[in-house]
C-alpha cells in the first residue's frame, strides 16, 4: 500500500500542473488567436485522449461500486427496522415466526441461530410485496392458466362391492396430519358481540388446515381427492356404530358432501385428472353403511345444478357456497320427509372480495384477480345463535354476520360465527320441541342456517373442537338435549382423513 501512495503523489501534482497549464493556454488562445482556435483546441484534445478512457473507466468503476455498496448498506438497514416487520400474514393466515428466546441448550446446538434465520426471512419487511413480486416472476415461467399446486397423493382403488359391516368400530391406528376440512378457527370466540365487529385475529391454536394438491384452471381452483380404503372403512364403521348406539333415541342421517373437482370441472378435463371418482366412493360408502342410518346422497342434485350454471362452490376456497348448501338442504328435507322452506323466504346478503384457502395455498394471481362473493341467507325466524366457545363461555352472536369489513381471507366466517364446539339456535316461532343435532366440520356452517326453519332447536356440534370443552359421548348429548334427529355432515375430504374419522369415532364412543 505504501508503495502505491508514493506513486500517486507525484502523479497528482503532475495532473494538477497539467490542468493549470491547459487552462492558461485556453485563455491565451481565446483572447488572442481567434482564427487558429478551433484547430488548436482540437489538437489539444487529441493529445489528452489516451489517458481519458482509462481514467473514465476507473471513475466509472468507482462510482458503480459505490452505488452497489450504498444500496446494500441501505437495504441492510431497512431489513433491520424492527417496526417494519410483520407478525401476522393475512395472505397465509398464520402467525409469522417470532424472534426466538436464547437458552443455553438452543445456543449450544445451533437451534437458536437457526430460528433466528427463519425469523429473519419470515418477517422480512414488506414481505407480502416481495411474495407478490415472486409470484409475478414465477408466472413468467410458462403457460400457467392451469396449474397443480402441491403433490397429488396416490389413491386406493375404490371397491365395487360394499364393505361387510361388523358391529364394533375398528381401532384407528396412527392418525395423519391435522384434519383437512376445517376453516380457520375464528376469533368469534375471542370477542363479545358488538355493533361493528373488528377484523378478527386468528386464534393461536386455530387448526388452519393444509389442503392436499390443488388444481387451478383459469380463475377457479379445485382440491384433489384421493380415496383411502382404510379411512373409508373406519368411517363406515363409525357411522354404523352411531346408528346402532342411537337406535331408538334419535334418527341418524349421514350426508357426505362432494367437492368441486367432481362437480364443476368439465368432463373432458376431469377424465384426465388423477383424482378418485367421488361418485363411486360415495356409492361405496353409502351402500356399506348400516341400514339404521339414513343416507342423504346429494351428488346428483349438485351435479345437476352445477350443469345449470349455479354458483355452488367457491373458486378460491375449498368450501361450498350457501346456495350449494341450500340444494343439499332441499334434498335432506325430501329424504327426511319434511318440506323445505323456499330460498326467497330468507333474506339474502352478499359480501364481496373473498379470497379463501385455495388462494392462500397457491397464491395464484388468477385467483387474486377474480375473488369470490359470499352470498348468505338469514333465516326469517331469528338471527341469533348462542355459542359455547373453546373456553366454555357462552354468549350470543348472529347466525349470519356482517363481514364486509373483515379481511378478504375470512369472509366464510359470516356463517354461524365460524367453528365453535357447540352452538344453539332456537326458533321462537316453533313450539313443538323438535330438535336436530348437526355434527359437522366447516362445511356445515353454510348449511346450518337453513335448518332453523324446520326445527325449534338446532344444535351445531363441531366434532373437532367439542372434546376440548365437553367430554360427553354422543349418546349422552342426544339424551341431555332431547335430540330427535342427528345429522352427520362431512365433506368427502374429511372422510379420507384418518384423524378426522378418529375424532368422530371418539365422540360416538
Amino acid at each position: 500500500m505504501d508503495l502505491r501512495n508514493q506513486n500517486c503523489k507525484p502523479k497528482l501534482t503532475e495532473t494538477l500542473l497539467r490542468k493549470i497549464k491547459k487552462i492558461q493556454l485556453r485563455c491565451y488562445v481565446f483572447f488572442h488567436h481567434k482564427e487558429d482556435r478551433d484547430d488548436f483546441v482540437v489538437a489539444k484534445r487529441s493529445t489528452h485522449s489516451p489517458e481519458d478512457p482509462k481514467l473514465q473507466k476507473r471513475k466509472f468503476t468507482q462510482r458503480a461500486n459505490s452505488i452497489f455498496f450504498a444500496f446494500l448498506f441501505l437495504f441492510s438497514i431497512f431489513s433491520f427496522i424492527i417496526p417494519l416487520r410483520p407478525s401476522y400474514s393475512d395472505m397465509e393466515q398464520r402467525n409469522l415466526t417470532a424472534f426466538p428466546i436464547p437458552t443455553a441448550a438452543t445456543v449450544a446446538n445451533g437451534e437458536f441461530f437457526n430460528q433466528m434465520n427463519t425469523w429473519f426471512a419470515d418477517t422480512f419487511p414488506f414481505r407480502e410485496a416481495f411474495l407478490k413480486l415472486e409470484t409475478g416472476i414465477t408466472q413468467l415461467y410458462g403457460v400457467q392458466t392451469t396449474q397443480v399446486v402441491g403433490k397429488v397423493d396416490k389413491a386406493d382403488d375404490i371397491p365395487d362391492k360394499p364393505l361387510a359391516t361388523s358391529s364394533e368400530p375398528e381401532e384407528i391406528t396412527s392418525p395423519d396430519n391435522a384434519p383437512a376440512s376445517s376453516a380457520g378457527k375464528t376469533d368469534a370466540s375471542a370477542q363479545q358481540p358488538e355493533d361493528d365487529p373488528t377484523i378478527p385475529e386468528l386464534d393461536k391454536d386455530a387448526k388452519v388446515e393444509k389442503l392436499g394438491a390443488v388444481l387451478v384452471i383459469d380463475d377457479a381452483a379445485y382440491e384433489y381427492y384421493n380415496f383411502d380404503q382404510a379411512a373409508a372403512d373406519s368411517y363406515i364403521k363409525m357411522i354404523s356404530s352411531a346408528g346402532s348406539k342411537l337406535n331408538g333415541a334419535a334418527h341418524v342421517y349421514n350426508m357426505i358432501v362432494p367437492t368441486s373437482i367432481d362437480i364443476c370441472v368439465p368432463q373432458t378435463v376431469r377424465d384426465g385428472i388423477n383424482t378418485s371418482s367421488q361418485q363411486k366412493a360415495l356409492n361405496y360408502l353409502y351402500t356399506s353403511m348400516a341400514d339404521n342410518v339414513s343416507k342423504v346422497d346429494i351428488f346428483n342434485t349438485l351435479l345437476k345444478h352445477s350443469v345449470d350454471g349455479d354458483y355452488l362452490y367457491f373458486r378460491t376456497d375449498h368450501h361450498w357456497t350457501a346456495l350449494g348448501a341450500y340444494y343439499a338442504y332441499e334434498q335432506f328435507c325430501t329424504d327426511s320427509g319434511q318440506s323445505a322452506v323456499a330460498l326467497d323466504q330468507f333474506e339474502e346478503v352478499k359480501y364481496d372480495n373473498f379470497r379463501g384457502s385455495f388462494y392462500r395455498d397457491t397464491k395464484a394471481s388468477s385467483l387474486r384477480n377474480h375473488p369470490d362473493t359470499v352470498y348468505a341467507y338469514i333465516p326469517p325466524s331469528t338471527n341469533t345463535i348462542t355459542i359455547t366457545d373453546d373456553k366454555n363461555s357462552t354468549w350470543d352472536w348472529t347466525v349470519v354476520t356482517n363481514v364486509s369489513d373483515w379481511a378478504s381471507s375470512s369472509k366464510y366466517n359470516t356463517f354461524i360465527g365460524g367453528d365453535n364446539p357447540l352452538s344453539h339456535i332456537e326458533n321462537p316461532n316453533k313450539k313443538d320441541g323438535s330438535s336436530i343435532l348437526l355434527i359437522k366440520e366447516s362445511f356445515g356452517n353454510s348449511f346450518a342456517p337453513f335448518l332453523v326453519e324446520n326445527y325449534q332447536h338446532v344444535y351445531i356440534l363441531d366434532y373437532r373442537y367439542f372434546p376440548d370443552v365437553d367430554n360427553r359421548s354422543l349418546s349422552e348429548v342426544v339424551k341431555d338435549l332431547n335430540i330427535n334427529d342427528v345429522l352427520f355432515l362431512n365433506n368427502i375430504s374429511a372422510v379420507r382423513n384418518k384423524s378426522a374419522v378418529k375424532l368422530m369415532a371418539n365422540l360416538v364412543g
Partner: protein
Amino acid sequence: MPDLKWRNRIMLIFSLIFYAWAGPVYLLLLVGMTLADWLVTKEMSKCMEQKLRKRCLIIGCTINIGLLCFFKYLSFFLQNFHNWFGVPENVLAITLPIGISFYTFQLLSYVVDVYRREVQAQENFFTLLLYVSMFHQCIAGPIVRYEHVEKELTNRKILRADVAYGIRRFTIGLAKKALLANTCGSFADSFLAATSSDSIYTTLISQPVLSVWLGMFAYTMQIYLDFSAYSDMAIGMGRMIGFHYHENFNYPYISKSITEFWRRWHISLSTFFRDYVYIPLGGNRCSKLRHIFNLLVVWALTGFWHGASWNFLLWGLYYFLFLVTEKAILARSEFHIPRALSRIYTILIVSFGWMIFRFEAPSQILSILKGLFGLNGNSFTNYETTVAFKGSFLFFIIAILACTPIAKVLGERLQKRALVEPNAQVALQVVQIAVPIVLLILSTAALVGDSYNPFLYFRF
C-alpha cells in the same frame, strides 16, 4: 486503507461467527484441528531430517483424516456392522459438523504441501485459521489450496476492477441459487420426492415416463446450479477483498465425454485427488493394471467423500467404469463421434449418475431406471405432468441456457463492442450498475417467500 493485519483479524472474527452460527460446538473442532496442524507444520519446518518430517506429516494427516472419518463415517460403519453381525447393539448417531469435508481437505493440502516444500509453514496461527475458516469457502465453496492463497493471505491488493467483478460474480451466484436452483429443485421434488402419505418408492413407481425424465433433468440442473452458485459467490466475495480463488466449475454440462466432464466439474476436488492420491499412487506412469487400480481408489474415494452411504460409493464406481472405458476407447483414434452425439451421451450418463447420487436405496434407483425406459407399467404422461411442464417450459429454457457459457460469451462480446462503440459502452455501464442490484432484489424476494431452501451439499 486500514492495515492488512486488522483486515485479516476482522475477517477471521466474522468467519468464526459465521461458522459458529451453524453450531458453536463444532467451532472448537475446527480450531482444534487447525491448531494441531499448525503445531505439526511448525515442527516440520524446524526439522531438517526427512524421517522426522515424515513422522510429522503422518501425525498431521492421521489427525485430520481420523477426525473426518470419526464424524462422517463412523456411524455408517457401525450401522453396517450392526446389519451384518448384529453388533454393536445401539448405533450412536453422530452429527456431521458442517463443512468438515471441505476444511479437512484444505488442511490436508496445507500439511502435505509443507512436507513437499511447496509452501512455507505459516508462522502465524491466526492467519492459518483464517485460511481454514474463511467464510467464503469453508462451508460449501471450492477446496482452496493453501499454495493458491499463500501470498494473498499476507499481501493483498484491492483493485476497483476486482471489487466490481466480485460484485457481479456474487450477485450472479446468488440469483443462480435463489431463482434458478431452488425452482429446479422444487420441480424435481414434485416428481421424485415422497408425498405426505407415500414413500419415495411408491411415488417413483407410479410416475409416468415423462415425469421421471423431467424429474431427472430438473435434479441434474438443480445440483449444478446450486453447487456452482456457491462457488460463484465464494469467488466473488474473495475477489472483493483481493483473493483470487481458482475456478471450480467450467460449464460441465457441455462436455463431450465423461473424462472432460470431470475436468469441468468440482475442479478443486478432482485436482485434490489427482495431486494427493492419484499421483502419489503412481498415476498413469505404471503398469496398466496398477493404473486401473489407482483410478479405482481415486474414484471410490471421490464417491465416498460425497457422503457416508453405499449409493455414493456406487456413484463413484459408476464413473470409474465410464472413465476406464473411455480411456480404452479414446486411445484408439479411429473412433470419431460427432460432437452433438457425444454431448448427448455425456449428459445422459451424468443425469443418471445424479439419480444414483440422490437415492439411497437400490430399489429406488431401479425404479428410476425402469421409469426412464417405460418399463414401470405407467403411461407416457399424465394430466399433472403435462400441466407442470406447460407451466414451466420457459423457465427451463432459461435454466438450460444458464448451464451453458452463452451468457458469458454474450457478456464478453458486449465488453468488446463497448471498447469501440459509445452506445455499447453506455449499455454495458447500465448493465454493470443495474444488474447486480436487480438480481439482489429478486433473490431477496425469492428467498423471503421460499421456505424451501435446501442445502444440497450439506452432507459435506
